[in-house]
């Protein structure tokens, strides 16, 4: 973890970035000037929950509840936050 993600942190999509479902790709994508990132299912589920109010811990709790059969997803979720913050797809709001 390079970006020191804390459970109490609250993130939202960075300015000028757009998150949407792409039917043609059958996946969520993040769009920004000159680029696009295609997110696989798990990553899409994380970003989808970022409303500028839920904390990292809230997102983890919610995802665990939504996907009770998934094993050890907390590390994956934190990894996704770390990556997305590193890539500047997210901004911290608190």
């Amino acid at each position, binding site marked *: 973890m390079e970006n020191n993600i804390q459970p109490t942190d609250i993130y939202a999509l960075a300015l000028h970035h757009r998150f949407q479902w792409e039917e043609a790709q059958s996946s969520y994508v993040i769009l920004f000037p000159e680029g696009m990132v295609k997110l*696989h299912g798990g990553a899409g589920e994380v970003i989808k929950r970022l409303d500028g109010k839920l904390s990292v811990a809230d997102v983890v709790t919610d995802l665990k509840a939504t996907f009770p059969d998934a094993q050890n997803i907390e590390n994956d979720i934190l990894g996704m936050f770390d990556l997305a913050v590193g890539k500047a797809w997210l901004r911290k709001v608190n």
Partner: protein
Amino acid sequence: MTQASLGDSLVQKEVHAQQQNNGVAANITHTQPLWLLAEVTYRCPLHCAFCYNPTDYDKHTQNELTTEQWIQALRDARKLGAIQLGISGGEPLLRDDIEDIVIEAKKLGYYSNLITSGVGLTEKRIQAFKEGGLDHIQLSMHDITEEINNFITNTKTFELKKKVAAMIKNHGYPMVLNVVIHRYNIGHIKEILEMAEALGADYVELANTQYYGWSLVNRSQLMPLKEQIDEAERITNEFRQKVGNKMKIFFVVPDYFGNRPKKCMNGWGEVFMIVTANGDVLPCHSARVLPNIEFPNVREKGLEWAWKDSPAFNKYRGDDWMKEPCRSCSEKENDLGGCRCQAFLLSGDAESADPVCSKSPNHHLIEQAIEESKNPQIQAQPIIFRTDKNSKKYASGESTERIDSFHAIP
């Protein structure tokens, strides 16, 4: 019109950058035109010496698509999976229906980008773009000095560009600057980056001139020295360290000084589709220079046919068309043999290896061009600016000045 997406595109860079990422897959399908570039007009108030538009563009200024035809093209491309839309030219703002195109793009779910010189951008229009849902505006900048800006564009637009940059920022748009780099501004890279930072730029593309269209005609006048490019890259890396994530800087490496060609357009008919002012559908900006290919036009068959079935889009897909040394080259998947247009323009053989490649039997043509660009006598020839008058001369065949050694009108 700048060279934003020529060859080493940003979409492609971002996509590739994601491939090793934890939690993110970038297996973009290779059969969708993710990027649609709408070159809505070739008319332009600027006369840039490095413009990559075709030198005979004048013949396509009278038969532009209508608003309805553009809207239909947007709808059809979206169905094929297009998502990034560039509205470009020429200067797109010379059309008065960009507002309508923007509204339709938003409705369809595109991430839309107006690629402009800034000439013709007024408070009223930018307000309408914002309300219509335009996502960002890419502004071309040329130099920190009024002299070079006005010289290379052959216009007095320096003050205007600064005003427009402020207008873009004031309307809450990301500041995306494109700077084409050539002999006249390469010594100012640090100052250009400082200017971008002062303007609050979020993205800066330093696009080293690639030689197509007008820039090919002016190649000996525009090409910097290898040492200058290395120094510019060093300064750029230093600046990147300093500003970090707050300003993303892309340095598009010039292919003439590499040993291997660029993977042009990320592959022919792989992710890019261009619809030109007159409705021609192309896999790359300069494809019309290639011989024995009939490009589809939106007025005839739809975009779906153009992308999936037209002989033109299938001609150089994959690597079946390759000759030696590409065919048996262990690196062929890295660059797909480079740029077909460059191969044909310089060597007369569209299926040959891009002469930029050091393994190409035609590599001497690149070495020769680099040598010529250092020759004081050749350097001293005046720039041929992108003007309607000069374009008419090339289109009619009245002039072949500085293009007779190429195998097509650039």
